């Protein structure tokens, strides 16, 4: 079974440029998460989807970040315009078990390492 697939693995952009990340979750997982992980820190939730609905986007900086999950499968996360402080690893994860993952945990992708120069 394929895991959570993210692309690209690495991205270097100049500040003020746009950037987009893509995530393909595990087949059948109805819940999808985007996390941001700064160097030396734990992941921080940006947004959680239940199917195609964003049910928790309270930590998403909506002035520059946007996300979508069309048809409740793949998801994209966009930053426009990027700032130096956005440099981080962006992780996508998915889970089943009613969307809580409480018993089964999350399956994470390998992440996209973004460097803004």
């Amino acid at each position, binding site marked *: 079974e394929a895991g959570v697939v993210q692309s690209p693995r690495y991205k270097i952009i100049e500040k003020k440029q746009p950037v987009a990340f893509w995530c393909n979750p595990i087949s059948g997982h109805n819940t999808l998460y985007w996390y941001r992980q700064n160097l030396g820190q734990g992941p921080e939730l940006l947004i959680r989807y239940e199917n195609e609905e964003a049910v928790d986007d309270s930590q998403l900086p909506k002035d520059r970040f946007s996300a979508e999950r069309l048809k409740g499968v793949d998801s994209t996360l966009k930053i426009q315009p990027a700032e130096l402080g956005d440099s981080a690893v962006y992780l996508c994860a998915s889970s089943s078990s009613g969307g809580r993952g409480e018993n089964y945990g999350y*399956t994470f992708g390998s992440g996209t390492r973004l460097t803004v120069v």
Partner: protein
Amino acid sequence: TQLLEQSPQFLSIQEGENLTVYCNSSSVFSSLQWYRQEPGEGPVLLVTVVTGGEVKKLKRLTFQFGDARKDSSLHITAAQPGDTGLYLCAGWGYSTLTFGKGTMLLVSP
């Protein structure tokens, strides 16, 4: 906001040594999970503990959930270089998984 404090932040030991890392919070969690993350990869789930006082073993790793479900510990016996990585605890509450900052473990041969 529910916060998880992990200690130590960094641990460097020799192969064969034992170690314990801690995860503490002032909040109660319905369950707590431990993940291990290797460089360039996403975190991988090791264990989920649900019941206060619960102890789970995974080969040389022993996980314990505090009686009050506010804290947890991870003990590794006879550490090996393959145990090197970032160990993250994460607590479930309010339909959200909150991560600690992690303990970076380096095991040298």
